[in-house]
């Protein structure tokens, strides 16, 4: 038996951020991770730091989180591969250009620098997009990172501040403030934070997260082919709709010169195998926007699972019916961006300090029977 002020279950980017933030408050933190650091959705995802406008609450958390990332650019080790690539939302037609103008107004009113691009400016910004696009919308402060190394860096910082980490052990049950582990030991803690992405359901079956599968493909190195993170405006329909299956054009330049090609979303698929038919559908969408991708060498494909909630907002804060139990999950496709913000507002909440942004929209208590 051992004891800690806070036990964090999960060493993905969210768990690692919480570990760093809480251990810097002089709390004794222990992180329990069944696999290795950053191996779940952290490793599977694209790794963008992006401000999103699906809802005021989503905007508030993504923007706050991005500001926290930007404040730490100088601290980031080279392995994190921070690239200030910017996000270019691509409008295919006039209807999507209308959406661009709405977005422009939204971001500008809230003080986020953005640029609307007309058809010619899009060609200049990304010559390899297909001709004839209506325009685009550039968010220059959005960035791209290599998330597994960011998680490792945060864990290292947490350990430097006194945190302990136990790899290769799985929490099997949370019983009040006691966490039972699969090596037949347990840890008693002042507080327990569940940050296991969609696996959180295995510990807490009523947590409203559903695994939402995604496929990705990565190319060999083609430096200079793509300059920004590129996303079709239709992505919003794909990401925020709740259709069982959807794909959207999303290509990201990596620091290595490789291109990451996404994106896809599937509910109710439990197996992690690459599904050739679905991968094909995703690639076909990417080729529509960027025909030159067709001849690029794909070196790997893989899948991962996002933890999706019914209202597309994460679950951050105390569990409504278990004293001492906290949630930090349900980030769906935005966990890389919002990891730092999640850790900051959760830490403030636990330390009884007012957080920089209101925590209420993310509190698990917004759902009945969590």
């Amino acid at each position, binding site marked *: 038996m051992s004891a800690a002020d806070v036990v964090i279950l999960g060493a993905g980017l969210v768990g690692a951020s919480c570990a760093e933030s809480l251990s810097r408050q002089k709390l004794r933190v222990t992180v329990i991770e069944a696999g290795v650091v950053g191996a779940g959705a952290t490793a599977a995802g694209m790794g963008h730091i992006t401000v999103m406008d699906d809802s005021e609450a989503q905007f508030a958390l993504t923007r706050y989180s991005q500001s926290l990332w930007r404040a730490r650019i100088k601290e980031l080790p080279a392995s994190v591969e921070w690239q200030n690539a910017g996000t270019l939302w691509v409008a295919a037609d006039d209807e999507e250009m209308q959406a661009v103008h709405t977005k422009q107004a939204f971001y500008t009113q809230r003080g986020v620098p953005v640029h609307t691009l007309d058809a010619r400016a899009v060609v200049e910004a990304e010559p390899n997009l297909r001709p004839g696009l209506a325009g685009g919308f550039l968010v220059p402060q959005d960035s791209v990172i290599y998330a597994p190394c960011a998680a490792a860096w945060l864990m290292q910082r947490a350990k430097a501040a006194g945190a302990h980490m136990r790899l290769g052990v799985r929490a099997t049950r949370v019983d009040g403030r006691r966490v039972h582990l699969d090596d037949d030991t347990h840890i008693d803690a002042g507080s327990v934070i569940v940050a296991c992405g969609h696996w959180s359901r295995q510990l807490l079956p009523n947590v409203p997260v559903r695994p939402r599968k995604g496929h990705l493909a990565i190319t060999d190195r083609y430096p200079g082919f793509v300059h920004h993170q590129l996303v079709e405006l239709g992505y919003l329909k794909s990401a925020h709709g709740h259709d069982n299956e959807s794909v959207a054009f999303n290509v990201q330049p990596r620091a290595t010169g490789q291109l990451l090609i996404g994106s896809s979303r599937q509910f109710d698929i439990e197996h992690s195998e690459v599904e*050739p038919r679905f991968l094909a559908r995703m690639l076909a969408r990417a*080729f529509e926007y960027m025909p030159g991708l067709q001849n*690029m060498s794909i070196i790997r494909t893989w899948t991962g699972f996002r933890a999706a909630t019914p209202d597309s907002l994460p679950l951050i804060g105390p569990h409504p019916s278990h004293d001492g139990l906290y949630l930090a999950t349900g980030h769906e496709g935005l966990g890389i961006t919002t990891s730092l913000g999640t850790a900051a507002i959760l830490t403030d909440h636990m330390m009884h300090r007012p957080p920089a942004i209101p925590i209420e929209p993310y509190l698990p208590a917004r759902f009945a029977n969590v």
Partner: protein
Amino acid sequence: MSEQRTIAAKMLCDGAAFHTSVSGEPRAPLCGMGVCMECRATVDGSPHQRTCQTLMDQPPSTAPHQAHFDVLVVGAGPAGLAALWAASQSGVTAGMVDDNPAAGGQIWRNALPAEWAQRAARLESNFLPGTRIYATASTPNGLWAERGSPSQRVHITYNKLILATGARERFLPFPGWTLPGVFGAGGLQALVKTGLPVEGKRVVVAGSGPLLLAVAAYLKKRGARISLIAEQTTRARRNDFLTLLLRNPSKLLQAVKLRAQLGAIRYRMSTWVTRAQGEGRLQGVTLNGGRTLDCDYLACGFGLVPNTELAALLGCRIDDGYVAVNHSQQTTVDNIYCAGEPTGIGGVDKAIAEGLIAGYAATGQTALARAGFPKRDRGNLFRRQLDTAFALRPELAAITTPDTIVCRCEDVHLAKILDHRSWRDLKLQTRCGMGPCQGRICGPAVEYLRGWPADSVRPPLYPVEARHLL
């Protein structure tokens, strides 16, 4: 079957640059077999083309877009040819595909035993060369392959599948092994067989196993000056092996012939290369004990690693790195058979015996299949003898120094590898094994150095153009 010249052979001959590694080192072909991806260069404006698998005069692709075979054999080495021949005896439509531009396998190529060369020639119309299977199709019993340049996609279906995917060389990294001029042993032989001249070149052959002798004899015949054959195993183990060969007359004869061909070439036991040196290209090697030797090429290989990726993708069980098969060479998946090196590294006789059994068994010729069991069992005995005789000694781990690059695709040094506690952690934190060779070169090295077996397999099995995944 004569072989034509590959672009890689021509480029090596001309001293042309291939590609630069991610940390800026010039690189040139290592494996010569389409695995290591170090021979990538821009061909006709297309970047990242594997020049060792592309002919100088690549015939325009006449690929059918669709092909069906009652029996499909993957791999045209000795096991594949035997399987194709045996299956064809039943009258079914049998076909064979291979990544290489010609049949014969990575080692034998155009020097197959005469009987098999004749059979191969007769079966040529059933053979799709230069055809690489990279994924399973969503149709039942369907595979996707690509062939030609620019490549076309072929959808191949089968009723029975025989995997004869052979092996690749095992590399143990040492300082300087990324210099142009360092090749696999079979790799240099493959490059010479596809058009690289070695006349007058000083070559050191090093590593382990009987392949070193065969390669040295071949290179000598082609005019190379073999300075040394360095074999890591001990004299005692080698002698035990020779004693066992006395009970295996055909193998003994092969050994005697080889030795005669080698003439006065020095064949040293308990000897290995600890460093390769040179400015921009290989100029010499250092041996254990500190002696140095000048040379133009180093041909090194520490035995063979079975190519089990396609079997794994198809769901066949892999035991201790080898494809599990029953007495009829059937894998754990219905209608899929496996023959040759993927079931155990045992050389040509075992490969042919298993190929025949698989070909007969897959076509219901059970009596003929059964008649081949004793030969196959002798092949398996030889396999175990090879394993013992050429087991890698633990001291070899020391040739990989902390500043040695282990993953050549991502230039990951041993020091980084030692920092991590599992393959998954290593991959995520350093990208070791995540480059275009998909861990086929560094994977076996990491397995030797850290004891971590290979990871899961996902499509595509080889890098392919994105359009082929539609």
